[in-house]
């Protein structure tokens, strides 16, 4: 069933999806790419954001507004999680790698099961005026929810990139990633900066969660398939590169969409992980890595 129309369709859809993947991954770009935290629970936090959006949705709140409302709450949550992680693992140094990873795996599991216990295993979705309609451009039909997610994701990614490169705190975050002792010598407190950064990453995850539930129904176990996608994007971008995240997201989105169209939906989960392995094998520093 191959035709150029179908392929073009797939590419357009892939670009929309890819930008969304970038938004989901940019939080991880900060926490893992810049701060070196083995944050395998990031997708679980995104799903948590989706459920928060769903909950606010039952009171009639629009999903995007819900997402933005959740951001301060998630920021605080992120700060607490990082503080705990730092005190328990990084401070003691040494074998933090394995234990930190195991810790976040445990956290991811706890989040997932808590969602199951709280909401059940059923899929949840939100209603909004832009969900369920599509835009007709010639032969193509683009679901409006994808356009909304694309728009918000683009705004999110660009603003975070600008924040990190233009503002004072943003640059401090980048500095702490590059050269922590130097920063300490200059009198700034690296722990407070890293805490702030992790908080931002978690807040961004909340908004990404809102976009996730706009795009489609969510269920508690969804975080697992996003582990592949987010790490693929972050590694492909290159650790520490924010603008790279957008490019990498688009690449992943388009690849997944093309595989979906040509080979079928059953091969889609392997795309992100396969791409990840290829990148790790051929060019581990990613496209724009430091």
């Amino acid at each position, binding site marked *: 069933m191959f035709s150029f129309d179908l392929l073009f369709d797939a590419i357009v859809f892939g670009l929309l999806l890819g930008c969304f993947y970038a938004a989901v991954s940019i939080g991880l770009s900060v926490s*893992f790419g810049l701060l070196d935290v*083995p944050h*395998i629970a990031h997708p679980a936090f995104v799903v948590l954001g989706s459920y928060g959006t769903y909950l606010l949705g039952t009171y009639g709140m629009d999903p995007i507004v819900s997402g933005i409302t959740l951001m301060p709450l998630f920021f605080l949550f992120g700060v607490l999680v990082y503080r705990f992680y730092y005190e*328990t693992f990084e401070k003691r140094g040494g*074998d933090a*790698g*394995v*234990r930190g*990873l*195991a*810790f976040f*795996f*445990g*956290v*991811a*599991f*706890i989040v*997932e*099961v*808590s969602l*199951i*216990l709280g909401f059940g295993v059923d899929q949840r979705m939100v209603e909004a005026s832009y969900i369920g309609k599509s835009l007709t451009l010639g032969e193509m039909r683009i679901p409006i929810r994808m356009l909304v997610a694309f728009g918000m994701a683009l705004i999110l990614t660009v603003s975070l990139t600008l924040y990190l490169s233009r503002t004072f705190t943003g640059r401090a975050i980048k500095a702490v990633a590059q050269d922590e002792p130097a920063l300490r010598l200059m009198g700034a407190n690296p722990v407070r900066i890293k805490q702030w950064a992790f908080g931002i990453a978690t807040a961004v995850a909340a908004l990404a969660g809102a976009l996730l539930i706009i795009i489609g129904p969510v269920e508690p176990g969804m975080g*697992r*398939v996003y*582990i*592949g996608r987010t*790490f693929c994007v972050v*590694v492909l971008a290159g650790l520490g590169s924010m603008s790279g995240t957008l490019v990498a997201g688009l690449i992943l989105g388009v690849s997944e969409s093309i595989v979906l169209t040509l080979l079928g939906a*059953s*091969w889609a*989960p*392997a795309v992100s*992980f*396969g791409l*990840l*392995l290829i990148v*790790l*094998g051929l060019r*581990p520093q990613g496209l724009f890595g430091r």
Partner: protein
Amino acid sequence: MTKRISMFWVGAAAALGLALFAAFSIKNEYFFFAGYVVLQFVVLATAWNILGGYAGYVNFGTSAFFGVGAYIAVMLIKFMNAPLALQIIAAAGVGALMGVSCGLLTLRLRGIFFSIATVAVAIILETVINNWRFVGGATGVQILRPPVMEPFDSYTKMIFVVAALLAIIAVATARYIQTSWIGRGLRAIRDNEEAAECAGVPTLKLKLLACAVSGALMGAIGAPLAMYQSFVEPASAFNLNYSVSALAMPIIGGTSHWIGPVIGAFLLGSVQQIVTVTITSELNVMVVGVLLVVFVVAAPDGIVGLFNKLWRKRPGAAKAP
């Protein structure tokens, strides 16, 4: 030294004897149904620890080896109605091969990248199986068990004893590796790989050996799953829960000694089975998550580590065991 070794073998023989005794005296099938799961985790945890605890390479792809083991069994059953022993040996062989190839591909990666790469392999393999109609695809396959072998009166009991046997083999292997030159080499790699290289330790060979043995054991215990459940489908055979449990149990029990994974598997496995029967099956995933976090934060050396600390605190205790 000889006295210590024979103590282990006496213990192992006693354990096997206990399993056989149970198979012939306990009537309730459910005991064997649940007991099989606990023994399965003893094998998985012990196998994981060979690479993860001794060498320090955190493998998150346990579910891949386990799932492949189950599907090798399925293939052999569908192809030629192979007996259980052949299924296990074939699965172990494939597991070893997989371990070596995974090792070659991913051991160059540091820390978290190695771990993520192992998750990637697991998901990719699951996707391949999902697309393979011969072994049932995402739908899964129903497996009919052959009639039961004498002298067991039920298939579940027989497979329980098989699992006990595999558990003993796994633990014996881990113990051998730990106490031999292989174990010393792996510990050197875990502490400082570069220094080990410089000191002349054949790091690549040792790592590949650990990968192969670990993979073989995981594949071997995956094979009986087909007969045990009479139904195999990719979503449950390749479930990430196996990976996390195989990692949590050694961490809880203690990663430095072969008894750690055994303790962790028995403890966590039994709690999970009890929770499943009495409350709900969701909660058993929560148990894994919570215990993992608690131990990783508070008792990083596991129960063995706690025991060691208490032992040393005893007045008059001369040296550590």
